[in-house]
């Protein structure tokens, strides 16, 4: 009977584990092998670290890695702050108002490419903002408007992600708040806690798991994202995924193992950062299980 139960359990898990095992783990293992010197198309067939070593000698990679880290961190921090503030500010309204809930979901269903395209019409040097600035007499020509797309700071990329991810974090936080109700805060109020104390010691710890887990997902997503930096970014330095994709699709196949090495490195960096982030949040706010299941 016990065996039956166990067999049944693993049979039910098998399809999902097969997808992860073959398509994710298998894909990753095959990618790692190709980057480590087993790349059939060019006849490479011996273990070597040279593709990784040459990444280390490549100044473009350092610039890309730094840019990727910077933009992903900036977009995540701003989205987390804006998203949680939005959730806390809209908490009472969202509890009663269906339109507000529905509106918050619009950005979730707008694909990143469409969002980036829409953003261009607003923040481009000849976009609506620049035209508005001209109408108000602030600038004389498009060139006077600060560059927000294809700019050196990646402002357009960050802005595009904030518009998508802040509502996502807000929705995750609102969902958690709705599930928790306000009994804890009412209890604290009855016990004489001030508004600030209720916020600091009750509300904040309550929403922390939602903000922590959703911002981690956001960071990992942006770190590996391709479409938005491809459309709104500069060719140099470009974000890691853009560089990896371009090298991977290079007509010269000899470049490909290096591109795969770059993608593997990017995955390892994200995994390491995610681990560090979870350790850090656990140390700071005593969060045992950040993922709400």
């Amino acid at each position: 009977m016990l065996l039956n139960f166990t067999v049944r359990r693993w049979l039910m898990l098998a399809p999902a584990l097969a997808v992860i095992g073959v398509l994710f783990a298998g894909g990753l293992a095959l990618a790692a092998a190709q980057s480590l010197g087993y790349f059939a198309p060019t006849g490479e067939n011996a273990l070597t670290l040279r593709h990784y070593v040459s990444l280390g000698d490549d100044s473009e990679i350092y610039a890309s890695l730094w840019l990727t880290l910077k933009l992903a961190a900036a977009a995540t921090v701003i989205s987390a702050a804006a998203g949680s503030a939005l959730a806390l500010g809209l908490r009472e309204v969202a509890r009663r108002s269906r339109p507000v809930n529905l509106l918050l979901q619009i950005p979730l269903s707008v694909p990143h490419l469409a969002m980036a395209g829409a953003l261009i019409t607003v923040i481009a040097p000849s976009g609506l903002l620049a035209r508005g600035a001209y109408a108000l007499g602030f600038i004389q020509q498009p060139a006077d408007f600060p560059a927000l797309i294809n700019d050196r700071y990646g402002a357009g990329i960050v802005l595009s992600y904030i518009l998508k991810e802040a509502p996502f974090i807000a929705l995750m936080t609102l969902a958690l708040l709705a599930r928790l109700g306000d009994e804890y805060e009412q209890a604290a109020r009855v016990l004489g806690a001030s508004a600030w104390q209720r916020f600091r010691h009750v509300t904040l710890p309550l929403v922390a798991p939602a903000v922590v887990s959703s911002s981690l997902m956001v960071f990992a997503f942006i770190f590996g994202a391709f479409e938005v930096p491809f459309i709104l970014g500069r060719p140099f330095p470009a974000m890691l995924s853009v560089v990896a994709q371009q090298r991977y699709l290079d007509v010269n196949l000899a470049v490909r193992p290096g591109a795969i090495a770059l993608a593997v490195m990017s995955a390892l960096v994200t995994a390491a950062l995610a681990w560090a982030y979870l350790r850090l949040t656990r140390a700071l706010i005593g969060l045992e299980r950040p993922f709400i299941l």
Partner: protein
Amino acid sequence: MGVPAIDPRADRPRKTVYTVKKQTPTKVSEALAIIAITGLTATPLALLAARSLAQSWYWPSLTPQVWSVRAWKYVFSPTAEVLPALATSLSVAMVVTLFAVIVALPAARVLAWEEFRAKRAVIFALLLPVLTPPLASTMGVHALFLRYGLTDTMMGVALSHLTLTVPYATLMLTGSFSRLDPDYEAQARSLGAKTIDVWRSVTFPAIAPGLAVAASFAFLISWSQYLTTLLIGGARVVTLPLTLVAFQRGGDEAIAAALSFVYLAPAAAVAFSVARFLKENR
């Protein structure tokens, strides 16, 4: 009633909340919130709509000089090949959604209702594809699919989309199952219901909202894939995002704007109908 509609846990029964003192939000704050959010999300979309209908829109005019439906006509003309791309995108996304849900359902049920030693490891394995950039594994999958002739095929592209959709669907459905007491099923069975009847009249109605959300997420994830499709499909499987990027980089802003709407509409329709469905099921 205040739970956001896209909420994997929306199917949890509402608790009666007794409050000591209730601050009633005024209609004003609701109106302000609506205006602010609409401003932020709808302005770029409205501008995009205007851009798609503008024949010429020179600096520094705030409105287009010449309106025209040229871009829209072009988008739906056979030369643009947008409609075949739309069909490809829809087919891939629907196959992915179906597969993801079928694969996720049994796994989620086990993860929600059973305790076993490797459970944490299984959840961790499911989280990994969500927390690491998909590019590396996609490159490996590309090599694998080359061997089995799956590159440049719609089936190959759909399979590659499963890497991301299965974890999300499984984790979301785990949430749904964990809020359904397994004893309900046992009770139905002890009252003589057959397995199919238990599923139809107990389990399915209880997890339906979560199922709708998980399915819509799977659809939207597949719908917005660009790089995975490009690598595995080798520009032979042309989905809408590939067409859109080609036009965005090609430089005709009006066509790119019109195409953005063609790309956006099905995604919005899916999200909207799920929101409707959740509203009816509350």
